[in-house]
Structures are given as structure tokens and as C-alpha cells.
């Protein structure tokens, strides 16, 4: 049961990380392409949200929010935050290999630190505030 819980946690951490990375990527490309300008009138907000790249980014970020809430229903916040920060590393790699952005030595050092930090937190128990309902049911 514990192994199943660990696999479920790893799966949801991966879903949260990927949806966050690609949501932010499409949002960023949409904002930079000039296809959408944010204005705080009802029609302006609708026009902003429904421009294609922004809509794709926002949809992925809604999925990110829901999957993250699901993960937080059993895992610690202090576990989820660093583990899903691996998304920063993916953002740098996507920028380097797909958008041909230059990545400085400092940025590579940063990605190594984030990877180490995520791995360190990843080996700690994902829940420290009591047994999960799945585990309680098994007892």
C-alpha cells in the first residue's frame, strides 16, 4: 500500500510539473507574440483569455491547479513545493533546445542546484502530518 502511495505521489508530481511548465510556456509565448493584451474590462478579459495561445496556457494552468490540489490532499506542502520546482529545470532545457536561448554557466549551476534540492526532498516521506486515508483504511 505504501509503494502504491509512493507511485501515485510520483505520478501526480510529474503531472503537476509538466502541466505547469507547458502552461507557463504557452502563456509566455502568447504574451510575447503580441496576439493578446491584458485589459481589465469584461470584454478585454474575455478577448485576452480566448486568444489561442493564452487559452491553451490557461487551460494547462487550470489542469496544473487541479492536479496540484489533488496532490496536496495527501502530500505535505513542504514536499510538493521543492519536488515540483524541477519544472524550472525543464523550462531552462526547453528554452535551450527548442527556443535556441543561450544558457549561461550560472543558469546551468542553478539548474544543478534545483535538481539536487528536488532529489533531496524527493527522498523524504511525502507525508508527515499523519497517516493518509488510504493507509488508515488499510490498517
Amino acid at each position, binding site marked *: 500500500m505504501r509503494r502504491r502511495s509512493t507511485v501515485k505521489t510520483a505520478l501526480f508530481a510529474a503531472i503537476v510539473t509538466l502541466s505547469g511548465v507547458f502552461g507557463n510556456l504557452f502563456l509566455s509565448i502568447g504574451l510575447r507574440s503580441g496576439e493578446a493584451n491584458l485589459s481589465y474590462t469584461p470584454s478585454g478579459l474575455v478577448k485576452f483569455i480566448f486568444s489561442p495561445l493564452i487559452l491553451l496556457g490557461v487551460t494547462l494552468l487550470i489542469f496544473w491547479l487541479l492536479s496540484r490540489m489533488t496532490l496536496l490532499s495527501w502530500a505535505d506542502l513542504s514536499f510538493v513545493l*521543492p519536488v515540483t520546482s524541477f519544472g524550472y529545470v525543464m523550462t531552462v532545457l526547453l528554452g535551450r533546445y527548442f527556443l535556441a536561448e543561450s544558457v549561461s554557466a550560472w543558469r546551468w549551476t542553478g539548474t544543478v542546484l534545483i535538481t*539536487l534540492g528536488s532529489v533531496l526532498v524527493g527522498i523524504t516521506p511525502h507525508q508527515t502530518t499523519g497517516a493518509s486515508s488510504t493507509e488508515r483504511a488499510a490498517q
Partner: protein
Amino acid sequence: MKWVWVLVIVLATTGGEVLQTMGMKKHGEIHDFRPGALGRVLGALARNWYVVVSIVLMGVSFFAFVELLAVADMSFAVPATAGSLVLETVMAKYVLKERVSQTRWMGAVLVACGVALLAL
């Protein structure tokens, strides 16, 4: 002006995520992923005030981040807002009563330092 947006993002993100964790722990673990069960979960969460307020705060954080991107580079915006990670770990320990081990502290600090380095 960009530091005002950073402050708004850090405070709204921290408050939102702590409240979201409290709301989800109050709801209990989700283990049924069939569409009907997920619909019932969404209905229950819509009546969970911790979750409702947390989503409002996440919305504030999102729009503040969009405003920050309009006046600052992505390479400044992302690392500058990473300060929320350490603040949230402190809140997790003292407000959510999570047992934050030395290993977990080290990991959180490494991640925060790494994100800051991405700005260089």
C-alpha cells in the same frame, strides 16, 4: 514598481498555497478518479472556504505575475518570486505543523538558491 508586484506575488502565493493545503487536508485524500466522483469532489471544494479564498489569492498572484512580465524580463520575474518557496516552507512548519526535516530544509534552500541563480 516591479518590486511591488514581486511583494504582491510572494504574499498572495504564500497565503494561497497555505490555505489551499489546509482546505485539501480538511477535505481528505482523493483516491477515486472516476468522472462522477471528481464532480462530487469539485462540488465539495466549491463549498470549502479555505479552497475558495486560496483560489482568489492564486488569481491575484496570476494577474500580478502577468503585470510583472509586462515591466520585467522573465529571467527576473521567475527567480524573484522564488522567495515564496522559503517563506512557504516556514509556514508549512509553523502553521501547517508539518515535520520539516533537515534534509527537507536543505532541499528547499538548494532549490531557492538555484532559482535565484537562474536570474544571472
